[in-house]
């Protein structure tokens, strides 16, 4: 077999952060090649480079032995490379056939759209893919599984011979997964090379010929499927040096402050039907509980439900100091002493038009009033203590928040919540996109707050972080709680197995 695509020293840096470095491996003609890695391992970046979304990178990519430099997705399409994104790329209002031929519409001799020809060809393509939908159906009406096949049909009509599939089963039902497996087998018979991105071990071991593991943006190794085990792969996915912070000094666990019983959050438009199912947890003052789980496992939804930030359609019980509560607005949770630092800082946390002081003071502004009006002096005095406590480095309280580093922005947001003196602090992936030094500072801050009696729930996409911080770790997989570990019991390996559903009770 000859390599159809060769990666040689491929790397990518985003504003000083290395997302991918020195990836070298070959993709053989006609194989199904799986790429495995944790969140943030660089899988998506690599695929964006290969599909022409990212055009500036280090290293070299060759297709059929010839070096290429794609200037856009169009170039990659011409070279026969198509990608099925996790977030599908369809114009929902247009019919299925029109989506397949978008940008390459067939025309009659008079220059008008030849819908009949397009529908005919689309019908043939879709029937081949076991997708018996009317090509005139608007794409938005189709089920997710059918939409995905629509994208595959589009790739086939482009005569693509390399198909990248980015976690294709994340939104599929079991029957749809089985159908996708058959479609993949069929594609391989036609000689299509498949690059399959997933962190679900069962799929990878069912479909792939070879497996490449990425970790922290670096290439780990490529192995034949028959020569390895799921356990070995998960080991390579997480097997980094664990940063050694020592927070083992006795934290004293106090009274139970929060109890969640059988929390279920429905998700009507999704085949799974729920975002969270029967989740229970306890939280005590002076304790840090970590929530592990892959993207989409329901970590954010769990915190948002407790905080009253989701639609109040959930069932189950949330007990605050033993009393059942049901918050329908974050303000109510806030008044009850719960604070939440959101996952996506830019989208859900920062106010880019406000300065540092205004960003920090927002939740506790009433304390800055003098005679009913805001006093600049009082506001500065008010924010001085959280800014000092969280050690924000900025040019002063009236500096632009957008000029701060990610770590300092995050400290500002934590400081914002410290102003309301919460008893429960929910931290959703608090160190995402933050450099190593700032991470260590945040760990110390969280540890200190906990020692002062705060009850903390922290989620993270980095397992080492949870092992460093948490007293107990709960693992979510696809909306269900699959394991609970004490700090002593937990290892990255065991958490990863529970999170990928490998050995967890389903």
């Amino acid at each position, binding site marked *: 077999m000859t390599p159809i695509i060769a990666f040689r020293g491929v790397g990518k840096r985003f504003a000083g952060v290395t997302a991918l470095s020195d990836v070298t491996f070959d993709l053989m003609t006609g194989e199904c090649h799986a790429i495995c890695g944790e969140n943030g391992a660089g899988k998506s970046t690599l695929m964006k480079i290969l599909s022409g979304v990212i055009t500036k990178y280090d290293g070299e990519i060759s297709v059929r032995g010839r070096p290429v430099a794609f200037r856009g997705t169009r170039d990659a399409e011409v070279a026969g490379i198509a990608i099925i994104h996790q977030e599908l790329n369809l114009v929902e209002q247009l019919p299925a056939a029109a989506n397949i031929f978008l940008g390459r519409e067939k025309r009659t001799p008079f220059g008008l759209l030849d819908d009949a020809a397009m529908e005919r060809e689309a019908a043939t393509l879709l029937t081949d893919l076991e997708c018996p939908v009317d090509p005139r159906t608007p794409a938005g009406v189709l089920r997710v599984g059918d939409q995905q096949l629509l994208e595959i049909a589009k790739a086939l009509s482009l005569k693509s011979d390399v198909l990248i599939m980015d976690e294709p089963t994340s939104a599929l039902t079991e029957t749809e997964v089985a159908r996708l497996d058959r479609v993949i087998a069929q594609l391989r018979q036609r000689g299509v090379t498949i690059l399959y991105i997933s962190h679900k071990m069962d799929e990878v071991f069912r479909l792939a010929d070879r497996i490449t593991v990425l970790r922290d943006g670096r290439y780990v190794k490529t192995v034949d499927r028959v020569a390895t085990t799921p356990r070995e792969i998960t080991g390579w996915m997480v097997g980094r040096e664990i940063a050694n912070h020592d927070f083992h000094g006795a934290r004293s666990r106090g009274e139970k402050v929060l109890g969640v019983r059988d929390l279920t959050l429905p998700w009507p438009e999704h085949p799974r039907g729920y975002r969270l199912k029967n989740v229970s947890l306890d939280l005590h003052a002076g304790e840090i509980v970590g929530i592990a789980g892959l993207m989409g496992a329901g970590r954010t939804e769990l915190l948002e439900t407790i*905080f009253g930030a989701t639609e109040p359609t959930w069932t189950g019980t949330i007990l605050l100091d033993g009393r059942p509560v049901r918050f329908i607005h974050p303000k109510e949770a806030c008044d009850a002493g719960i604070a939440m630092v959101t996952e996506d800082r830019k989208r859900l946390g920062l106010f880019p038009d406000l300065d540092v002081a205004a960003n920090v003071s927002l939740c506790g502004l009433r304390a800055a009033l003098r005679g009913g009006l805001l006093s600049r002096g009082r506001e500065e005095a008010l924010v001085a203590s959280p800014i000092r406590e969280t050690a924000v480095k900025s040019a002063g309280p009236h500096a632009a928040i957008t000029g701060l580093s990610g770590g300092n922005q995050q400290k500002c947001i934590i400081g914002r919540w410290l102003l309301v003196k919460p008893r429960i602090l929910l931290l959703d992936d608090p160190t995402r996109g933050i450099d190593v030094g700032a991470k260590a500072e945040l760990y110390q801050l969280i540890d200190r707050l906990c020692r002062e009696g705060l009850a903390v729930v922290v989620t993270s996409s980095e397992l080492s972080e949870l092992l460093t911080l948490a007293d107990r770790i709960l693992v979510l997989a696809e909306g269900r709680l699959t394991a609970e570990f004490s700090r002593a019991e937990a290892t990255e390996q065991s958490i990863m197995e529970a999170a990928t559903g490998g050995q967890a009770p389903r």
Partner: protein
Amino acid sequence: MNLSGTSGSGWRLPRHELALLGAIVLVFVGTGWLDTNHTYFVNWSESRDIILRNTSLLGIIALGAAVVIIAGGIDLSAGSMVAFSATTCALLLAVFSEVDDKRLVTVPPLGIAVAIGGAMLSGLLVGTLHTWLITSIRLPPFVATLATLVGLRSFARAMCLFVTKERWGSESQQINVNTPFFAWLKEHNVWISTGTFLVLAFVTWLILSRTVLGRHLYALGGNEQAARLSGIRTENVKWFAYCFGSLTAALAGIFLMADSSVAQPGNLARGYELNAIAAAVVGGCSLQGGIGTVTGTVFGALFLRLVIDAVSKLIKASADVYEGMIVGIIVALAVTLTQFGQLAKAGRTLFPGSRGLAAIPTIATFAGLLAMMGAANVEAFRGRTGLLGVVVGGGVLLLLSAIRWTEGRSVS
């Protein structure tokens, strides 16, 4: 550490306001000097009154528009709201007057108080309706206020027909108001509306920059999701914003009714909402929300009215024909100028590709036609307007072609 920061109200807005102030002075001095009649010097008090009256009327509505825009919304209904409030006011006066007093000469003080209170209350009602449509039905603000833009005026007309028929037995499209109080308001309307505008501007400034509510308005407009997740009751903040927007329009309605001694819902204040939004935008409010100041909005309104006045003085044409064009050009220019830096930073050019090539003769044609029409009203160009049009159009064509040529060179 952060002097080169990309945003932050710390320095950008004052700079924007200073530039506006400079532009205001420039237009003012330029008009006084270039105007062949020298109206600003010869007949200063009349010019002053016209500018002040028009500016405060526009400014009152613009303050409302600014608050809504800062909160991340938009209110297209202001013009219709003005008509609705004026009609409500006049109809309540009619209800409280003697039946045979169809010109509404004598209305008891209680009637006047109720009429003014009712007009303001109509603003609260409309603001509440907007908030409900936007927060509960989840209509986009554009759609919700577009509906009331169209609907309110028609509602006001129907109301006018209904009350006049019930009260006087004959339907009428308008109601005359000759109550002494409103006549007095009309007589002193320059100082009263200017005073009201300034007080309102001060109150708005106080709310926006010195209260918790004001901070929440900026937070809501800057990042609605984050505001909600920070425990801000965003729905209530929106309620304030839309009520404030409608209330300012209602206030303007009372002044406008007094000014014309008649409430005529069919045509009153048509298109005012767009001028108000334009004033806010020229004053530095970002339609993305979260950015804007009272000072900027006041300057924006003054600048718009000054330029409209200047054009009517310079080409001696009736101002309302050119008003739309002037507002359009100023808004486009003001926003272009504030985005110039980003345009350059992103490496984009003004006239890229074939689209750019097509835009050059388009702009030149418009410029030539405009020059020709404008020159028709100026004595010096009598009989040579066509020539002037060709010269200006050709000049613009050459200038823009030169810009495109240099852009092309700097890219390659």
